[in-house]
Structure formats: structure tokens, C-alpha cells
């Protein structure tokens, strides 16, 4: 008996119920010509998918049948052995085991090889699928699905395959995703002893006991990364006060080093500010150096993504008064700084704004709050909460955060949030509001080191002490939204 026995020969070897095996042998092994060749052509005419499905089906049944056959054979062999020992061997009558042994064994051996080959080939066939082969969604549908995923998922799914990676890192995809996102996750970027950490604004800080330290690809050993500002998911940082500026997307890790502004090193105070101007679809970075004494000129320059160069600011850099090194607060297309021109609390306070489109300074009206023991004690610290320019107004018993509900309209200043006093004496300088969570809670840094969350009534919901480093010269934290946007490109 030849191992590749023709089907007729096999038929005589294999008794009863194994016709299925017989037919499958025909399908898989070499087919004799004519009748079977026709069948073959017919099969090829069907879609390739049908063929695949059939193979899987045949494969599954073959495997089962072989197992059954092997089992039956084993049983019979054992029976024969016992009978033989008892001298009742019926070898020649029933299951022709010896003949089978040679022929079938070789047959089975060959089948096993075929099965193994098929298995490797159809390894990816999803047996779960009732079609018997994988369902592939068209790529345009996959892109629509991707567009509805949050940035964190998208950054992770870059790993899925090279095709997905190139889809997700495409700037057009990033723009679509950013524009269409129904919710943009807010995250906190906080400079700490162990590096820069990123936290979810919405989650309790105590839950994120080990928030990841972000890899800051350009950070130099020992240098603080000073955070200047963020918008559209891009964060502007500086390694020194007036040079080594980087635009960095913490979500994707992409960054860009800006050319040096060429501003002199000796200064008294520095202003920085980073923002996006939708009217010109341009990102701008402002750096200003205020020098002492007033006879020396102050210097200020603005970098624009579209211009890709620094431009000198000619007007508006008059004495900034008593101000700290500060990062401009972006709101309504302008950067803002809070300054006090002289000791008179009533008239000396100003909010100076820098319009990013026109690259000019202007003034923004302060809230008209009553000063005095029943009114406010001091006003400090500009911030942007919920897209409104805000100030901290310290009363005698508590602090209030006031927001300008309508930009530029002095009457629209109104209290938004209340903050109780901490253990230390009241001073707005100790509170640095970062953002409002989706539920309206205030997230803020206290004394530059503690991270706290409070509700609009002033109740402190949680406070994590010693979260950051205590270096008051350096800005410790900012809020940023997650995005895939590139630090090189504008939105359109």
C-alpha cells in the first residue's frame, strides 16, 4: 500500500463512518485529474474567502476525525493485545490493524504534515468568527474611530502597527482630532524634585500616588525647567530666563528648540509669555527684560511660528513697577501681567495686556472693589480659570477669586470662587490657581509646594503637601490640554 494511496485503496482500508476523512483526503492531497480537476476550477471560481472558509472547516473536521480514528485504533489495538495474550486473537477478521498500521500510519503522518502547514498558514484565521476568516473594517472607518479616542489612548495605540502609527502621527489627523474633540482632557504639569510630572486634573491627587515622571527629552542635568505657559497642548519652557526656549508637547514628547532671542543677560526682571492667536493662526512667544535703572532701555522681543524669527517690541515696555518674574497669562488672544506701579493700592495696580495679533500692549481694567477693612486687603496673582481672566482678592477673613466674565468689561468682574485661609498669614502670593476641573473645583498650588483642590465654597477637598520643589523664582506648574499637535505647525 502506498502512503499516498489513491482514494479507492484508502476506502478499503478505512472502515465505516470515515468517508469524511476519505473526501478530505481527496481535497488536500494530490487530486487525480479530470473529475476532480473540474471541482478544483469551480472552487477557484468562488471567492477566495469561500475557499478559505472551506479549508478551515475541512481542517477542523480532519483534525477531529484523525483524533477519533487514532482513538479507535488505540482501543482496538489494546483489545487485540489482550485477546492475543488470552489466545483469542482475531487479527485477520475485524479491524485490519496490521495492514492499516503501515498504510494508515504513513497516511496519518502525511496528514499531520499537511495540517501543520495549513495551521501555520491559517493561524490568523479567527475561528471565533462565524465567517471563518477575519473581518477587516475599511480604513476610513478606522480613522473615524481613532478620531473619537482621547489623546492618551491614541499615544498608546501608536504601538499597534506601523500603519496606525503613521495615521496617528499625521499632522492633519492631529488637527482634526484637536478641533473635533468634544472633551479635551486637562492635565497638570508640575515641576518636582523627581522631575516633571503629569497628572490628571479630574482624578484625586492621592490616587495618583506614582504619577509618571515625564521624560523631558531636552532637559539638562541639574537645570530646572521653567514653565512659561501652555496652549493647545503645547507647553513653552525655558532652561534659562532668556534663552534656551523649547516648545514641547508632553503628550507626544515632540519638541522644538527656538532660536535664541539675543536679549542681553543682565536684567532685573523678566517677563515671558506664550500663546496662540486664532485670528492669525499663529503661536507667539514674548520675552522681555526690564533693566535698572530706568535710564537704560528695556528689551522685548516676540517670536512668531509663522515668521519663524524674533521681532523687537518698540513700545510699551515702560517700567513694570513692582512685579515678579512672571509668565504672562493667556486669555482672549492676549498675554497679561499684573503689576503695581507704586505703593498706592488704589491707583497703582494695573493689568497690562499684550495683544498677540497686533503685538501691542494695552490695558485691561481692574475690578472696582472697595479697599479697606471691610473690603479687600490686597489683590494678587493673575490666572486664567475657565477661559476667564482672574485675580485673587484677599479679604480680611478669606480670599476670593474674581473673574472677568466678559473680557474688557469692567462691570463684569465678579467673585467666582472662595478660598479659606491657610495656616500661614493671608497673602495672594501664596496661592497659584492652576485650573478648574470639569466639576468646577479649583486646583491650585499653595506656597509653591503643596497641591490642593477646593470647591467654590472654599472647602479644601484635598491637599497633598510637599508635592513640588520650593524655589519661588521658578514657575512650578501649569495646566495643559492633551493634544497631538506638533510644536512646528500651526492649526491650518
Amino acid at each position, binding site marked *: 500500500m502506498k502512503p499516498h494511496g489513491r482514494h479507492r485503496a484508502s476506502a478499503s482500508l478505512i472502515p465505516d463512518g470515515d468517508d469524511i476523512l476519505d473526501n478530505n483526503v481527496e481535497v488536500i492531497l494530490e487530486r487525480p485529474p479530470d473529475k476532480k480537476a473540474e471541482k478544483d476550477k469551480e472552487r477557484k471560481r468562488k471567492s477566495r474567502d469561500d475557499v478559505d472558509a472551506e479549508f478551515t472547516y475541512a481542517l477542523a473536521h480532519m483534525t477531529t476525525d484523525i483524533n477519533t480514528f487514532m482513538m479507535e485504533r488505540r482501543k482496538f489495538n489494546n483489545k487485540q493485545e489482550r485477546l492475543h495474550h488470552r489466545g483469542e486473537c482475531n487479527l485477520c477478521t475485524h479491524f485490519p490493524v496490521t495492514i492499516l498500521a503501515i498504510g494508515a500510519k504513513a497516511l496519518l503522518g502525511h496528514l499531520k504534515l499537511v495540517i501543520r502547514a495549513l495551521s501555520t498558514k491559517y493561524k*490568523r484565521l*479567527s475561528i*471565533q*468568527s*462565524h465567517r471563518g476568516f*477575519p*473581518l*477587516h*473594517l*475599511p480604513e476610513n*472607518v*478606522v480613522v*473615524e*474611530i*481613532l478620531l*473619537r*479616542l*482621547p489623546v*492618551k*489612548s491614541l*499615544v*498608546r*495605540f*501608536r*504601538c*499597534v*502597527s*506601523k*500603519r*496606525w*502609527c503613521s495615521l496617528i502621527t499625521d499632522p492633519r489627523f492631529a488637527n482634526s482630532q484637536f478641533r473635533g474633540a468634544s472633551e479635551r482632557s486637562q492635565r497638570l504639569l508640575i515641576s518636582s524634585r523627581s522631575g516633571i510630572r*503629569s497628572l490628571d486634573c479630574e482624578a484625586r491627587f492621592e490616587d495618583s500616588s506614582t*504619577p*509618571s515622571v*515625564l*521624560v523631558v527629552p531636552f532637559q539638562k542635568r541639574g537645570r530646572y525647567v521653567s514653565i512659561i505657559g501652555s496652549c493647545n497642548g503645547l507647553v513653552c519652557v525655558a532652561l534659562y530666563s532668556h534663552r534656551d526656549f523649547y516648545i514641547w508637547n508632553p503628550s*507626544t*514628547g515632540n519638541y522644538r528648540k527656538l532660536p535664541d532671542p539675543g536679549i542681553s543677560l543682565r536684567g532685573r526682571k523678566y517677563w515671558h509669555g506664550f500663546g496662540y492667536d486664532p485670528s492669525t493662526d499663529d503661536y507667539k512667544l514674548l520675552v522681555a527684560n526690564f533693566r535698572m535703572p530706568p535710564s537704560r532701555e528695556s528689551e522685548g522681543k516676540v517670536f512668531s511660528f509663522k515668521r519663524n524669527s524674533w521681532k523687537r517690541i518698540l513700545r510699551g515696555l515702560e517700567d513694570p513697577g513692582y512685579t515678579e518674574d512672571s509668565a504672562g497669562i493667556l486669555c482672549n488672544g492676549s498675554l497679561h501681567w499684573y503689576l503695581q506701579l507704586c505703593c498706592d493700592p488704589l491707583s497703582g495696580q494695573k493689568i497690562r495686556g499684550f495683544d498677540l495679533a497686533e503685538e501691542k500692549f494695552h490695558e485691561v481694567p481692574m475690578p472696582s472693589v472697595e479697599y479697606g477693612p471691610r473690603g479687600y486687603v490686597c489683590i494678587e496673582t493673575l490666572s486664567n480659570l475657565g477661559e476667564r481672566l482672574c485675580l485673587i482678592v484677599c479679604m480680611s477673613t478669606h480670599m476670593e477669586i474674581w473673574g472677568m466674565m466678559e473680557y474688557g468689561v469692567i462691570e463684569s468682574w465678579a467673585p467666582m470662587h472662595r478660598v479659606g485661609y491657610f495656616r500661614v498669614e493671608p497673602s495672594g502670593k501664596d496661592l497659584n490657581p492652576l485650573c478648574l476641573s470639569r466639576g468646577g473645583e479649583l486646583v491650585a498650588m499653595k506656597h509653591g509646594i503643596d497641591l490642593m483642590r477646593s470647591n467654590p465654597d472654599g472647602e479644601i477637598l484635598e491637599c497633598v503637601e510637599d508635592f513640588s520643589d520650593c524655589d519661588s523664582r521658578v514657575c512650578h506648574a501649569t495646566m495643559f490640554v492633551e493634544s497631538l499637535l506638533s510644536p512646528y505647525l500651526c492649526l491650518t
Partner: protein
Amino acid sequence: MADDGVNTKVEAVSKATTETIELRTEDGGVFDVDKPVAMEFLILKSFYEDEGRVFDKTSIRLPNVKQLELSKVIEYCTRALEFGAKSAAAAGDKDAERMVRQEREGFEAEFVDELSNEMLKELILAVNFLDIKEMLDFLIRSVANRIRNRSVAYVRQFFDIENDFTPQEEDQIHQENAWAFEGVDAD
């Protein structure tokens, strides 16, 4: 085999004299579908409107759609039309609008919960073929929700994608963006 349950629902919603159209699926299913529901299938709508055909009770064979998928599609579209009508009726009344919205969200959550990953994909293919914008958007959102917090391996299996990154390349992406791999649902 016409799904009597669906037809009863369809009949209950529509008026007695609504025209229906017969749709046949590739696996031998036959469905009598109300005209408003059938017109949600843009592939049918353009067939009638573009060709200027009279909407008579002809039978249309849908080559890429199976019984199970079509019955689910009809179910969703019928309910979507109902919700649309209720929403329009409730316009102006904030409470009523909210109730309709919640009812719809409840139905959609239940509808999608019952679908296996496989079925979800089958439905997307069917709905994409039939060109039903609203339902396609709903299914796409459902897939996004299903996979958003899953691992890379799960997503590969879901979309049946082969990993063509080397282990080193994959490792690098992992390390550079470790934060994105935190808090992911276990497989």
C-alpha cells in the same frame, strides 16, 4: 425568514397605510420594512430618488447584508426615528427633552451592550454598505468607547492587525510615553 417581532414593532409605530418595501438578505432572510425606515438607508434612498423610480413593493436583494445584521439595523433605525419624533414633540420643554435624551441613551447603551465585538464589526460593515449615517456614527462611537482604555494587544486582536514593529521599536514607544500605558484595563 421575516422577523415578526420587528415587523410588529414597525407596524405599531407606523400608520396602517405606510408603504413597505421587501428586503432580502444574502442568507435568505426576507424583511418587510417601512418606507421611512428604509429611506434611512441612503443606498436605497438614492436608488429610488436618483433613478426616479416609483416606490412600489418590489423586492430588493442586499448582497452584503445578513439576516441578523439587518434585523438589528431595522431595530435601531426604527427606534431612532421614534426618538427623533419624540424629541421634536418635546422641543422647548427642557424636562421633556432631557427625558427623551435619557431614554435614548438607555436604549443605545442596552443595544450596544448585547453586541459582541464580532457583531459590532459586522454591523459596521453592513451599515457602511447601506450608508446609514446616524447609525454608523453611533456604532463608531461605541467601538471607540469599547477600546479606549484597552491594551495594545486587545486592540490588535479586535481589528485583526498584525504587529509589524520589532520588540525593540515597541519598547521604545513604551518608554517614551510610559504615562499613556498606565491604568489600562487588564485583558
